[in-house]
């Protein structure tokens, strides 16, 4: 499908949802559902997306949608997928259906990790999309294991004892890649063609696929709500959130800023959650070293082919 056909396609996640203005999650959902040609069944973990898109008696989903509990979006969708396979074998269903689970970073990095790991290991044919807004935004900005070092949240306060979160973020994409599943990728809504291509690839491959999408949050990250896409692009340009994919164990970097790689300082200056670090050169250097180390490792992995 070309761009015009994709744009003209009927929306499967419609207007009227109550996510904040400038939220990246609905952009990610719209793009994901646009990129899938087949019929689709969606499961969602508890989170901003779930509570804001299905306020009774309304729903923004035009696809069969299921929510179970916070921790088991992956387990739920794997049950649905197993049922589909059984019905297909019995000849009761002929249609080709794709299965997608959406989870925030809370429902994926922390609470839903074991159910995700289990579903990946069992090899169900589904796509898991994590919209990573780097904290528990739905309940009022509490730290998660996706929150980057130095970021303020309500449970990683700034004061004399600590400057925001003390620990580095968890590298979930690598954890998922370690399950040796057919397809793992990292994306952002700013690179929407890249994201849609990855979704298309993820659903076309037999077996589990996982896409980790950075989802800038104007409320929690403290930036003006028209800058969502600019911030997502900055994450790519600073190599804070590199675009890459792992297909059958082979790493491939999709975008290498090369000489135009921006210093992490720009990323930190763009958001109010890092306000206390704006003049703290030592801390910024520490974060820069962390980002560089991860980027170098990724480059080495991709050069191994």
């Amino acid at each position, binding site marked *: 499908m070309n761009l015009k056909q994709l744009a003209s396609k009927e929306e499967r996640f419609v207007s009227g949802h109550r996510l904040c203005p400038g939220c990246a999650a609905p952009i990610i959902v719209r793009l994901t559902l646009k990129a899938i040609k087949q019929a689709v069944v969606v499961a969602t973990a508890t989170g901003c997306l779930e509570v804001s898109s299905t306020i009774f008696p309304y729903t923004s989903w*035009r*696809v069969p949608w299921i929510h179970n509990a916070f921790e088991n979006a992956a387990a739920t969708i794997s049950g649905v997928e197993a049922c589909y396979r059984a019905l297909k074998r019995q000849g009761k269903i002929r249609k080709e259906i794709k299965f997608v689970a959406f989870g925030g970073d809370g429902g994926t990095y922390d609470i839903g990790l074991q159910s995700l790991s289990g579903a990946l290991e069992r090899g169900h044919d589904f796509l898991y999309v994590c919209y990573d807004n780097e904290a528990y935004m739905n309940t009022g900005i509490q730290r998660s294991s996706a929150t980057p070092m130095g970021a303020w949240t309500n449970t990683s306060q700034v004061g004399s004892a600590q400057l925001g979160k003390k620990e580095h973020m968890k590298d979930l994409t690598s954890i998922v890649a370690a399950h040796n599943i057919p397809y793992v990728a990292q994306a952002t809504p700013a690179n*929407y063609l890249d994201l849609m291509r990855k979704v298309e690839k993820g659903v076309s491959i037999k077996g589990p696929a996982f896409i980790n999408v950075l989802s800038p949050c104007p409320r929690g990250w403290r930036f003006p709500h*028209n800058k969502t896409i*600019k911030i997502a692009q900055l994450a790519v340009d600073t190599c804070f959130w590199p675009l890459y994919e792992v297909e059958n164990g082979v790493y491939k970097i999709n975008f290498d800023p090369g000489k135009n790689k921006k210093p992490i300082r720009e990323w930190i200056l763009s958001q109010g959650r890092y306000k206390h670090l704006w003049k703290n050169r030592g801390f910024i250097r520490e974060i820069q070293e962390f980002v560089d180390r991860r980027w170098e490792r990724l480059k080495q992995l991709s050069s191994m082919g």
Partner: protein
Amino acid sequence: MKKKSWKSIPEGGIITTPGNSLKFKTGDWKTHYPEWNKEKCIQCLRCHFLCPEGAIKVKNGKVVGIDLDYCKGCGICADECPVKAIVMKKVGENGSD
């Protein structure tokens, strides 16, 4: 929508009309609204793909307008437009919206 009693709610609280949130207009959230200039627009469709609300209407591969009934006025479209064909204006100015 009229409030229902528990007797008339479907079992399990299932919502049986997909996409009925279209009945809930979020357009009144905004303080600024986008104004689209058809002449300046190069039809790159960037705004359509990046709108969180899906409020940028496309017909036959072309942008035809912005649905202010749902637009929350975040301003991503105006910020991302490569030719500045969308500008944000304050609600209430010039008697608009």
